[in-house]
């Protein structure tokens, strides 16, 4: 009695639970790895999984085992040179050779356990750090929606999509085209026959010939199919991504000496989160990076996050530049403008009122949303106090002082709330 059982369609992902357990157990390590990964990623690049590597000593499963040392008498295969009693130098430690130890000869050392995080898992950990509410997590992590839209006709498809008018029109045209040589000849013959009949020669040999010919032509015309498979036309529906508008996102960051790497990393999370939000809402997003110390400059992302400057801080320079860029490139009303500014709050005293003015008069009226974060553990600085005056009057302005990535989300609370209802 043979039993062959097909189990291929049994529930998949049987090990999903074990995988989750693994992830939970090593959350700390994985999170550290994700943090590192974020440092090295572009803020536009959040939709991929990540190769995570964890030091394997962290996840070893201990056992009682013999260590090296003591006496080992072991058998090997493939003797090519030894006789009993030969003395051999020890192979250099760690050098593989004939010792029992496996030499690690492939790329990674044996020290790291490497595995792939899926996109969902990656985002989950990213959101975890930011303390995002669940509803918003799902909102953000959702893959772009598509809607189907008509796009003309095509010649193949499912029967349900047949477009009858188009198909019949095609069939008619084909019938006319194929039938017309015969039809015109038919008309000529009929006329000749009528003439013969009219002239009294209706019984002549020629008339019979004509009648036969007419009958043949009629049959030929009849034989043209009423509708043929290549007449069929189908409605063509294509999928287009739902968000169809465009947005521009300004990242403004203070890069003066007091912004250290850690603060920049926090700022990066802030920009990433805004980007992620925009990415779900808009189809096309431009990102403009403006960094400033005493003067502002538009730079690419690499330079934005990684080069260092020192010296004083004049925030208004950046806001002026932002205004100029808006006026020049994004001023014609078809762009949704979002601004995100990160700073440690240090500013030249006399400059802060100017900033408030520029922001209030020239930038906020254009913006959908402008968020400011001050990354500082200390007392609020003068820029903060100036901005506070704007805060009450503008609904599209949000500000927050933060110390850790978890403080970032409240900045966007209003923003997310709006789109969720």
């Amino acid at each position: 009695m043979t039993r062959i059982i097909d189990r291929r369609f049994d529930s998949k992902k049987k090990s999903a639970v074990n995988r989750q357990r693994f992830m939970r157990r090593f959350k700390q390590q994985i999170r550290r790895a994700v943090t590192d990964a974020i440092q090295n990623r572009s803020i536009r690049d959040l939709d991929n999984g990540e190769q995570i590597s964890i030091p394997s000593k962290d996840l070893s499963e201990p056992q009682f085992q013999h260590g090296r040392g003591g006496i080992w008498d072991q058998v090997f295969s493939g003797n090519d040179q030894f006789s009993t009693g030969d003395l051999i130098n020890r192979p250099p430690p760690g050098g593989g050779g004939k010792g029992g130890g496996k030499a690690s000869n492939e790329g990674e050392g044996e020290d790291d356990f490497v595995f792939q995080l899926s996109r969902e898992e990656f985002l989950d950990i990213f959101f975890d750090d930011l303390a995002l509410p669940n509803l918003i997590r799902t909102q953000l992590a959702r893959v772009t929606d598509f809607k189907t839209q008509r796009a003309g006709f095509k010649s193949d498809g499912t029967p349900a999509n047949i477009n009858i008018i188009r198909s019949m029109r095609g069939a008619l045209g084909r019938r006319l085209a194929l039938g017309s040589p015969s039809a015109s000849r038919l008309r000529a013959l009929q006329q000749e026959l009528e003439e013969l009949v009219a002239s009294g020669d209706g019984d002549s040999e020629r008339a019979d010939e004509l009648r036969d010919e007419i009958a043949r032509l009629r049959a030929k015309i009849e034989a043209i199919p009423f509708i043929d498979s290549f007449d069929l036309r189908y409605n063509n529906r294509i999928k287009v991504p739902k968000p169809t508008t465009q947005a521009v996102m300004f990242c403004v960051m203070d890069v003066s000496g007091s912004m250290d790497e850690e603060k920049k990393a926090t700022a990066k999370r802030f920009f990433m989160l805004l980007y992620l939000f925009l990415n779900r809402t808009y189809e096309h997003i431009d990102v403009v990076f403006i960094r400033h110390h005493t003067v502002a400059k538009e730079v690419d992302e690499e330079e934005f996050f990684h080069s260092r400057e020192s010296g004083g801080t004049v925030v208004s320079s950046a806001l002026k530049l932002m205004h100029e860029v808006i006026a020049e490139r994004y001023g014609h009303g078809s762009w949704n403008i979002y601004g995100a500014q990160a700073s440690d709050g240090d500013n030249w005293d006399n400059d802060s009122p100017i900033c408030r003015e520029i922001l209030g008069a020239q930038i906020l009226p254009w913006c959908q949303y402008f968020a400011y974060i001050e990354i500082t553990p200390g007392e609020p600085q003068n820029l903060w106090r100036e901005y506070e005056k704007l805060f009450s009057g503008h609904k599209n302005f949000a500000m927050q002082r933060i110390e850790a990535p978890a403080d970032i989300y409240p900045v966007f609370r209003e923003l997310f709330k709006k789109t969720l209802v």
Partner: protein
Amino acid sequence: MKRATVKKTVHLPATSEWSFEAIDEYHEQIARVAKEFGLDVYPPQIELITAEQMMDAYASVGMPVNYHHWSFGKHFLSTEKSYRRGQMGLAYEIVINSNPCIAYLMEENTLTMQALVIAHAAYGHNSFFKGNYLFQTWTNADAIIDYLIFARHYIAECEERYGEEEVELLLDSCHALMNLGVDRYKRPPKLSLAKEKLRQAERTEYLQSQVNQLWRTLPVHDTKPDKVQVQRFPPEPEENLLYFVEKHAPLLEPWQREIVRIVRKIAQYFFPQRQTQVMNEGWACFWHYTLLNRLYDEGLLADSFMLEFLQSHTNVVYQPAYNERWYNGINPYALGFAMWQDIRRICESPTEEDYAWFPDIAGSDWRETMEFAMRNFKDESFVAQYLSPKVMRDFRLFAILDDEHEPKLKVSAIHDGSGYRRVREILSDQYNLGSREPNIQVWNVDLRGDRSLTLRHQQYRRRPLGGTADEVMKHMARLWGFTVRLETQHEDGTVELAQETRIEKRRGHPDN
């Protein structure tokens, strides 16, 4: 001439794509030939699965059902990684020692591979499981699947009741001691799901009362311990650490004892597999080779089939030399296959040498001799008994003595007249679990004092314990609940304290 004419009547499918019908045809023929050879097997149950399911099964120690634990997730991830990179011709086969004997075929394999796996797993391993004394003694093929289901449910229930984390910590500790959670000499009772369930409640109650008994006597003693020779507890050293924990750890809850027991039972179930790798894999290779060759001789197999089959066969039984890059010890498939082939050769066409070395089997009936060897040996004794000079010469085996007190390595024996016995002895010892793994036993519990537990490590040839021993000790301390010590007894009889892991507060976690 006759063979050539017969060969034309190939009538088993020779495509590389498999189909259920084709597998069925192959299976029928293989089963027929296996029967002709007199292989005694559990009824095979062949299951087709995907690569992912195969990785799944790999990750959970080859069992179709198992409880959940992060370490299985870890194994899955690393298996998946190497599979993605194409580093392993994944899962040649997985076969489960159960009745019926479940053999997995992977969807991605060619028809040839499927036939090979059927012969190898569903007949080779299967008959070994059914015949070998270790499996007969230690495992119960009828009950294992049921027991695993019971274990999975029980552990899931505990997770619900006491929290996943609590259970996970306990399982971690048990896994760390798993290799020392087996009875090596005592015979375990048979498993049975119904009995397990019935007795489980009784047992927990009883166990708890036993433990209480043990500790209740504690304060009420009027003897003078200083004068009287203090009775050790346990009176005899206990080799099964998990068993000792299950029965005597003072602070464990009943459900914790049950989980310790589950891990112990599963460890026990895999115990024979760890001791019969060479024999078992060699036996399966011998039979797929023999069965398929018989079919070929009967003219049922196409040449293309044979070529593909021989290619994978030679890959599997290849033994690299010590100085090749991919050398990784003696390949059990290679050694086992060579030894079984050799036993058949000794029976069928013995040489002078064979008569001298194996007077009792040379020229005997090969099926009977092999059957006897398969039933009554494990790797250690199998090598000691049957490794012939010819195989040693073929493998060019040699032994190297590495004594850390000597400046150089010494070649202690090679494959020559004076070395055969020595090489065989050393190789046999290499497969002896007793020397392969450190010998650590429960030595004493300080019943009258701080309840501390002392383990004793009998050192074998001055080999120290490896780096993770202190971690294992923490796990032991977690299970025991009080201070745990590890003593090392050197070969000259002196004893030294190697490690002490204290637990300060009751039910606390071990400090570092």
